[in-house]
């Protein structure tokens, strides 16, 4: 009995020590070869399962999304009932194709405007392990040329950056994640600052927050923000639209100026996105932003094509 107790305490101690060791090894800036080898193996083994589950459970996730959107959807029930009669399964499939095509077209247009070299990808998983992280998985990986710290964009603007790349999948940290911080520049005035993510905004609905370095900086609602760009285009290439200021916070005495930001991209409905493989030759500055008036920000004026 005594030996049994000693044995199981030893097992517990060994396993706990192994976990703590893993954490210590993995907490550094550079990914440790041991844990990244483990992650790559796990990713390779899991990719087929993930894709199959994605196909099988699409109706389930669709239903859950519908339930989540129920309060807002009530207003649209009448309209949807009218449309419902037209929507056969065939049409639904074609609609999906059309939407993807439009997403791609917008992406290509953005890439053409900014001069980015880009790899299109589909986002397969939206995650929140433990309820904190705000990240998505893409179906492209190192074999397609994706590396960590590459910028990820959608037709409208910035989505986030690649934090991990396995052989066939990669993980993207969204700009709304609490750990995300993007160096930005205001569209017209050129003032610089940073956009921080806030995964769990308790006091407001904005998923991100702008912080300008100067306390007397002038910002107003509707001002638009583009990325400032980083050294060698990693992790963020310059000139990508980030979002629009929705509410300026008045905090007298604060050292910096803060405002709430609505991202250009609907981060809850990501489908086709692009990984920027190479930065443009020269900074596109504000060229990528859609033309005025900014009432319908994030959508270039080419609605007839869809």
């Amino acid at each position, binding site marked *: 009995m005594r030996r049994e107790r000693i044995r199981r305490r030893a097992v517990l101690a060994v396993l706990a020590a192994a976990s703590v060791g893993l954490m210590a090894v993995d907490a550094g800036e550079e990914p440790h070869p041991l844990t990244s080898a483990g992650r790559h193996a796990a990713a390779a083994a899991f990719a087929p399962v993930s894709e199959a589950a*994605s196909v099988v459970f699409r109706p389930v996730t669709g239903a859950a999304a519908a339930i989540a959107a129920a309060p807002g959807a009530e207003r649209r029930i009448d309209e949807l009932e009218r449309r419902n009669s037209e929507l056969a399964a065939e049409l639904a499939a074609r609609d999906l194709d059309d939407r993807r095509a439009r997403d791609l077209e917008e992406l290509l247009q953005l890439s053409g405007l900014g001069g980015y070299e880009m790899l299109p990808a589909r986002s397969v998983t939206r995650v929140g392990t*433990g309820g*904190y992280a705000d990240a998505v998985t893409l179906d492209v990986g190192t074999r397609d040329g994706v590396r960590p710290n590459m910028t990820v964009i959608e037709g409208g603007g910035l989505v986030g950056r690649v934090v991990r790349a396995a052989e066939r999948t990669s993980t993207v940290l969204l700009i709304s994640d609490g750990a995300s911080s993007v160096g930005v520049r205001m569209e017209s005035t050129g003032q610089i600052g940073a956009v921080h993510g806030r*995964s769990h905004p308790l006091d407001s609905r904005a998923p991100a927050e702008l912080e300008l370095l100067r306390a007397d900086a002038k910002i107003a609602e509707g001002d638009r923000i583009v990325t400032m760009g980083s050294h060698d285009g990693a992790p963020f290439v310059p000139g990508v639209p980030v979002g629009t200021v929705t509410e300026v916070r008045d905090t007298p005495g604060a050292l910096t100026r803060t405002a709430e930001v609505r991202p250009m991209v609907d981060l809850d409905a990501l489908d086709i996105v692009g990984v920027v493989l190479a930065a443009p030759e020269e900074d596109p500055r504000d060229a990528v932003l859609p033309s005025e008036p900014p009432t319908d920000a994030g959508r270039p004026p080419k609605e007839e094509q869809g």
Partner: protein
Amino acid sequence: MKRAVSAVLLVAAVLLQVGVVDRLPLPWGAVPDAVLLVLVAVALHSGPAGAAAAGFACGLAVDLLPPADHEAGRFALLYCLVGYLVSRHGRSEVRSAWARYGVAAAASLGTAVGFALLGAVLADPRVGWAAAAFAVPATVLATMLVAPVLLAPAERLLRLLDSERYDGLGPPVAPVRIGGGWRG
């Protein structure tokens, strides 16, 4: 036999968690912890060392499978402790169904708090007081909401295997005696 069933249950739970539950667009990011529920059921029917090892294994899987974005080892440590403690101290409480839910709730609360504390210790910028004050109760609540459909069936299956072993009831299967096979 019981050990094999436990392993299958845990693998299924990990796949369910990473492949399905984590990708549901749940409001406010409150994700139920399916792995924890199955682990509690398994730990209630196995020894502390085995339960700790099982917890470590599935925690490591959750840590490494994409798109996990935290240091590997966080869930491994937490699930390992959960397995050990539930098996060591929870088994005497196993008499009633309510006590089992209580054990699961305590384990879920401990895991959520532990995850937040580990995040704070490792200086994870996502884990602050506000985020943890929201995420911990939300995770426990979501986990307990799915407990009746995960914990209860898994626990019942394992209990059935237990009773089969001890009093010889169960389906009329001819006993197969392969050297030392009864140790399960």
